[in-house]
């Protein structure tokens, strides 16, 4: 397996008028070709910032440290957008330029990346959009159609890495499944996909590996089947237990504010296994950043 995307020691801070938001802290991960990684977590854990940080699209009040590398090259991200890394944005309705037709947007993207503009129909069809709908303006498209158009625009340059930022938010279940299947097909063709979502069911359906984010950090990062059967981090376990098709048990307490993170493990105040050790930030080992991983507790 070759690495398609390597993130090392990524930190993102936002300076606000009277506070600093720690959106991403010490995040390192590697995404391989043909791998579908699901980054899951509750809203406000920093996962949405991740996509924009990787693409170097953050606003000016964001301070970023760490490295993001695509493949083996070392070219800056701004030269690789589109061709090497594509983004399926969070809310397709606002992500489409409102005064231009789908065809005009798609043809432009194809042209910029050296493909024939006549491929537009093929690309649209691949994303599940009826080519006839390309001649509509974004405001004339339904939510599902806009989502497919946004997907078509992302896959048009045939990028090696695809970031999907909550691509299923607000969609009906059949549309969710359609979107997930499309991502899965891209993986099969060798694309590396990072799916950022709060929908654990969606992650379970398609992911090869899962990274759980809590309070700006990755707390667990393991193969999906292992993760969904036996999570190591108490937070990951609690999150899975809150699903309606599992225990349907809420996690007690509230997640910390990203403006006011505790020094040690951020989950300790809500964690049944917390001990004095947890005042120190745990390093990630065996796929989980925890002083008392569950597998060890259960079977030493």
């Amino acid at each position, binding site marked *: 397996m070759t690495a398609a995307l390597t993130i090392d020691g990524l930190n993102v801070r*936002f300076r606000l*008028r009277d506070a600093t938001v720690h*959106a991403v802290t010490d995040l390192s991960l590697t995404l391989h070709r043909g791998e579908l990684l699901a980054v899951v977590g509750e*809203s*406000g854990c*920093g996962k*949405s*910032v991740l996509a924009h940080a990787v693409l170097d699209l953050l606003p000016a009040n964001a301070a970023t440290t760490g490295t993001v590398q695509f493949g083996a090259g070392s070219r800056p991200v701004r030269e690789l957008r589109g061709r090497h890394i594509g983004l399926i944005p969070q809310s397709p309705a606002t992500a489409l330029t409102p005064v231009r037709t789908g065809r005009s947007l798609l043809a432009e993207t194809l042209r910029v990346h050296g493909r024939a503009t006549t491929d537009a129909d093929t690309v649209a069809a691949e994303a599940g959009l009826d080519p006839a709908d390309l001649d509509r303006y974004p405001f004339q498209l339904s939510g599902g159609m806009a989502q497919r158009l946004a997907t078509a625009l992302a896959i048009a340059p045939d990028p090696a890495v695809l970031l999907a930022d909550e691509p299923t938010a607000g969609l009906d279940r059949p549309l969710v499944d359609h979107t997930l299947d499309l991502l899965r097909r891209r993986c099969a063709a060798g694309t590396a996909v990072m799916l950022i979502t709060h929908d654990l069911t969606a992650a379970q359906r398609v992911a090869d590996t899962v990274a759980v984010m809590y309070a700006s950090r990755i707390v667990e990062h393991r193969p999906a089947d292992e993760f969904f059967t036996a999570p190591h981090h108490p937070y990951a376990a609690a999150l899975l237990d809150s699903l309606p098709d599992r225990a349907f048990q809420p996690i007690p307490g509230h997640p910390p504010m990203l403006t006011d993170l505790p020094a040690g493990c951020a989950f300790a105040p809500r964690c049944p296994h917390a001990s004095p050790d947890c005042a120190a930030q745990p390093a990630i080992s065996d796929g989980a950043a925890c002083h008392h991983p569950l597998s060890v507790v259960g079977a030493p």
Partner: protein
Amino acid sequence: MPRKRRLRPLSWLRPGTRGAALAAVVLATAILACLLVPLLWPLDQSAVALDRINQPPTWTHPAGTDDLGRDVAHRTLYGLRVSLLIGAVAALVATLIGGAVGAVAGTVGGWTDRILMRIVDTVAALPHLLLGIFIVAMLRPSLGAVILSIGLTHWLSTARIVRAELLSLRTRPFIDAAISGGASRVRVLTRHLLPHVLPRMALATTLMVPHAVWHETALSFLGLGLPPHLASLGNMINDGQRSLLTGAWWASLTPGLAIVVVTLAIAAVAAHWRDRLDPRVRAELQL
């Protein structure tokens, strides 16, 4: 029609807390000076001193004297007094008209709203200085005529603001939630509608004061505002125009600066207030 409308000048100002505090101090000082000046340093409006005409700024006359030997600094304070008074009253008149129209459009809705807002759009297209000139000319230049001419031409933005606020409130489920919680019509009005609308109206009134001041000074400058012997900022700049050719630039400078400083201070305070009204601005970033 999806339109971004920003119809008031000075509404872009984004002062920080320190800037707004400075502006508030400037404004408070100016208002205090205007209130106290008749007590501490009364002015004889018609007095002239031909023995000291067109004197440049000195310690005794910090802003110089004009072509009739009158102290420019002293008259500027009096002019500011009159301008701010007219500005405040005219802004109030405009707010009453605009508030009424906006309230009707925003609460009745439907066709009434559509027609009222079309009328507002059209009236906004009337050249308001010309209308002001017309009104003043027909009523004879006077305080009342100036106030009326400003009030009748400046109510539109308030109408738009009140209407927009009411319309957006009407569709917000928190009103539904209040009704469902057992709130009476009066309670919804006093607890949920007015607390949102009134600060915006007050803000609109405040932001209108600079406009009213500009309008008043413009009319006075043209000789259509207050009687020429009265110390008003517009009259003074007009008087100063005569001295300009003799090189006495100071006679117009100080009244003009007074307008600039005071209107900027009002706008900065209002803008800070506007940002505080809007929790979304305070939150700034929702992750």
